[in-house]
């Protein structure tokens, strides 16, 4: 379909501005829901670029990627089909906190995603740098590019990544740009501020890239992928990809030209460590780091610190571990995980010289820090629509998060809700008990963030309910309701859920002979304390089921007590989550609320009492007072 511009009468339903991990999910979700979508990106060759490390997943992030797959997104399958190493993390712990992580071929990842976008119905992609938001009567109606071309739409999803007023630092050298080799967008920042959106600064960084041929692997510790890899996408419910426990090459999406059968291109990572010599180099040159000389003002990610940060903050630690990660199968560039820095290039070279295995490393790209604008996310509704500019949705680093996965899940929700907005449907807001995605968005819009926000399992108070295996069945009601998954897969998931429930019931009621009347469930829960051969107890039909079903049944039975406890906690919280704060309810002048509380509540404008209770600084007694006042307010409205 032709690209439509310059004509207000030819509006797209959704324009997605930005083609990173958030933008891709937003555009695909909206288009797959049947909306008319345009994606704008400053550079078609950097779609879905992994600007930092060539890996997807990891603790809490891996769970998010599986949720994305459950909600019809692309990140999971794109990762699986371009992965060069898969590992399940935390296998020493229980299934709830295990998470898949994959090294990817970063170019293959990008190319495959680009191709998927190109093939998607209802979606056009176009190279143009967004420079200005078109806002009329407080409602966003499109995007104007740096070439002065206007694209009109009913909603805009802005996923600008690190590109807003971005500055890169290598030592004292400063360059404008959101990523080495790319541009910076000043116009969008100005446009947002002109229309009343507050912006603040954040900082992030990336390590140097080096040539694999220059690494001396001798003596370094090798890290291989799992022999039996855990994938991100759910294949048990997908006929096209996977049958009889096997991937079928002929069934790979036949139009997408990039990618391979998951697990067929395994590569190793390697580990090395910093030492006291590295610490000396850094300490001697700390004044050259723009972070420490005060040039960088943005707040960096506490959980992904630069190497100079680690040396300064953890003086007692003699060595810091570094992972050497290959960036792909058709390149010899390697990523040094753990060595992010903004020190000058010559110091970077000095540091490498002291690290075992990297003594002769050849740098292909320097490490750098990047500072950028973000819009504090308390300016958003839980739908990710801006409270300041109507019909404008934002996702990813623009909202203050860090990480591809965090960005992607927001993009997905923003895309879905842009379509809901166009259609006048209720927004999709996932509960904190339903998904990490729900926890993430609720944290952002309720608490805001002052540093790049990264997801952790401990942020989820109902973590045990959010095990990665259950994503597909857990989120089924939403993927069905919003038309995110269609056809055969939808049916398969429904069958899967029925089957899980059936077997769970059977396990709790079947009493195999010879175990003093205990149920299979009782026996599963006492495994470890009793020597039981489960294989002899489980019915044959169960063993024939798909592994994903068996795993979920086992999980639900084995952790029944804990899951019930969390469900009970969820129900308790639901009481106040279900109390809606009436539109127009004024906090000003409520006696008993402290001024700080009034300010916070007015600023965040929570939708429910539950959301109000999660605002930082709002305490239980504030909620007690609000509860009384809301009742009084409603009584007054009625009379």
């Amino acid at each position, binding site marked *: 379909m032709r690209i439509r511009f310059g004509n207000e009468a030819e509006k797209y339903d959704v324009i997605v501005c930005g083609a990173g991990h958030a933008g891709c999910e937003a555009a695909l979700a909206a288009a797959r829901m049947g909306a008319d979508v345009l994606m704008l990106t400053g550079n078609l060759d950097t779609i879905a670029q992994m600007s930092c490390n060539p890996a997807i997943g990891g603790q809490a992030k891996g769970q998010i990627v599986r949720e994305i797959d459950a909600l019809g997104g692309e990140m999971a399958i794109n990762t699986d089909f371009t992965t060069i190493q898969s590992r399940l993390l935390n296998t020493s712990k229980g299934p709830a906190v295990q998470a898949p992580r994959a090294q990817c071929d970063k170019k293959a990842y990008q190319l495959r995603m680009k191709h998927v976008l190109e093939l998607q119905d209802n979606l056009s992609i176009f190279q143009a740098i967004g420079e200005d938001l078109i806002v009329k009567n407080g409602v966003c109606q499109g995007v104007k590019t740096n070439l002065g071309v206007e694209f009109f739409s009913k909603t805009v999803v802005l996923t600008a990544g690190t590109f807003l007023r971005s500055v890169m630092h290598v030592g004292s050298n400063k360059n404008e740009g959101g990523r080495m080799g790319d541009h910076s967008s000043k116009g969008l920042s100005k446009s947002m501020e002109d229309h009343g959106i507050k912006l603040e600064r954040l900082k992030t960084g990336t390590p140097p890239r080096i040539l694999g041929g220059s690494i001396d692997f001798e003596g370094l510790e090798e890290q291989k992928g799992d022999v039996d890899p855990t994938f991100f996408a759910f294949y048990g419910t997908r006929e096209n990809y996977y049958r009889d426990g096997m991937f079928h090459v002929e069934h790979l999406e036949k139009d997408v030209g990039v990618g391979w059968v998951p697990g067929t291109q395994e590569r190793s990572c390697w580990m090395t460590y910093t030492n006291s010599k590295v610490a000396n180099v850094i300490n001697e040159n700390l004044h050259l780091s723009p972070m420490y000389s005060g040039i960088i003002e943005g707040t960096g990610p506490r959980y992904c610190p630069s190497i100079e940060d680690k040396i300064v903050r953890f003086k007692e630690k003699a060595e810091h571990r570094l992972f050497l990660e290959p960036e792909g199968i058709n390149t010899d560039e390697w990523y040094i995980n753990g060595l992010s820095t903004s020190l000058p290039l010559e110091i970077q070279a000095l540091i490498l010289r002291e690290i075992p295995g990297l003594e002769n490393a050849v740098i292909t790209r320097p490490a750098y820090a990047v500072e950028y604008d973000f819009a504090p996310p308390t300016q958003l509704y839980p739908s990710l629509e801006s409270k300041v500019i109507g019909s404008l949705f934002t996702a990813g680093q623009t909202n203050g998060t860090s990480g591809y996965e965090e960005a992607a899940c927001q993009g997905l929700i923003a895309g879905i809700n842009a379509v809901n907005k166009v259609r006048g449907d209720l927004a999709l807001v996932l509960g904190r008990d339903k998904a990490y995605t729900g926890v993430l968005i609720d944290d952002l819009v309720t608490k805001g963030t002052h540093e790049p926000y990264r997801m952790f399992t*401990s942020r989820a108070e109902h973590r045990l309910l959010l095990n990665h295996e259950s994503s597909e069945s857990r989120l089924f009601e939403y993927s069905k309701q919003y038309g995110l998954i269609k056809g055969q897969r939808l049916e398969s998931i429904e069958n899967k859920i029925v089957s899980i429930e059936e077997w769970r019931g059977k396990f709790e009621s079947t009493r195999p002979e010879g175990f003093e009347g205990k149920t299979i469930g009782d026996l599963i829960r006492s495994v470890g304390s009793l020597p039981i051969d489960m294989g002899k107890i489980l019915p044959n039909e169960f063993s024939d089921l798909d592994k994903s079903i068996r795993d979920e049944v086992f999980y639900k039975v084995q952790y029944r007590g804990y899951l019930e406890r969390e469900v009970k906690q969820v129900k308790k919280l639901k009481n106040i989550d279900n109390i809606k704060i009436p539109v127009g309810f004024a906090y000003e002048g409520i006696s008993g609320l402290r001024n700080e509380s009034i300010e916070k509540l007015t600023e965040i404008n929570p939708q429910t009492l539950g959301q109000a209770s999660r605002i930082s600084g709002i305490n239980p007694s504030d909620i007690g007072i609000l509860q009384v006042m809301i009742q009084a307010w409603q009584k007054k409205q009625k009379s």
Partner: protein
Amino acid sequence: MELDTIVSLATPNGESAIAVIRVSGVLSSAVLKGAFEVELNKIKPRRAVYKNYNSVSGNVLDEVVYVYYKGKASYTGEDSLEINCHGNTLISQKIIQDLIVRGCRMAEPGEYTKRAFLNEKLDLTQAEAVSDLIRAKNDYAIDVARKQLKGLLGQEIKALRSKLIKVLAVLEAYIDFPDEDLPDEETDGPKKSLVDIGAKVNVLLNSHRVRRKLLEGVKLLLLGSPNAGKSSLLNELIGENRAIVSAEPGTTRDYIKESMTINNYEVNVIDTAGLHETDSIIEQSGISKTFDQVAEADMFLLVVDSAVSPPELPKKIQAAINAKNCIIVENKIDLNHSESLACFNKGFHHARISIIDSKGINDLKASIGNLIESNINEHSGYSVVVNTRHVETLTEANKNIEDALLKFDTGEPSELIASDIKEAYLGLGNILGENNNEDMLDQLFSEFCIGK
């Protein structure tokens, strides 16, 4: 928007020197300007003002002294007024009715304290202490309530919670950073902390026994052979014929319980079936009930007939009694004129009485008083004392902590240990009133008196 302005009488109904009427909420000009002809912005807080109280219809209802408390500096945390009028029910009721005409409404039981809680003047344990303080009947009970009102229990709970959070933080680090090069996970530290926290929770739980003694009364059990005179002694102590007295041994098959007050302590005196070998099934069941009661009792009076040789006591009873919790009462000294019976078990305090001649009863009461004092003092090591509501939560938390410790030993995944610890943490929050539960709060404050 504001909460309703509430009013009530803060002193008991009836004739008295003065009566105090309490008002809390927005003191609109309708109240201040109307009743006292004074503007809100002119009124000086915390000053006693002598003034006429004018009704809506313009009549002087009484000459009163009022004190105004501003905002946070009041009991409730909102603007409050205390009106001291003459202690005549008619006058105080007229003033209250006038205040209702001016837009106030009658306060519900405990509503002032509930507002103090909502306005963060008190945490929930402190609010409960207010009720305890009003009801305290002896010095020790007052002391315990006052400590709790100062927030000591709240502080202990908060300290336990922050210790739990520290343990949790260590566990969470290893769950959330599997790929960081953290030092090897060790469980000794977290385990030791949990053991300490569990011990503290148990100290709090044990303190409940003290509270029961203080508020519900000390359980004093009468033990002895049939016809030693236990029931007669009960009657003598209580001062009325409550128990059935008969010359036939074994009449008291069920418990008979009466209350009395000694040295301001509530004492529940419990009579038991006589202790002797018997073939009668009814009596046997009576004796086995006695054993149950022994387990729950705080103190004992072992009543013996000084005219006959002392009885052989069942082992369970021998084990339960000691010099610190038992007095040996030698009855019927009117029949036996020997100065003292050479009795078993040295170290016990012996009281010699004759019920028929009413001899030695006052001395016995004094001895019981001393026993209670020393018994209560043994618990003075408890800086705080928990109530039944706290016990429920603490018992739960204790179980969670024990579960967590067990899991460390059996090597179960740490996210499950974390789940137990989090549950304990949330539970302890209930004691402070952190988890908003309107039903629980309503229930709790409804047990207060009106005007508090």
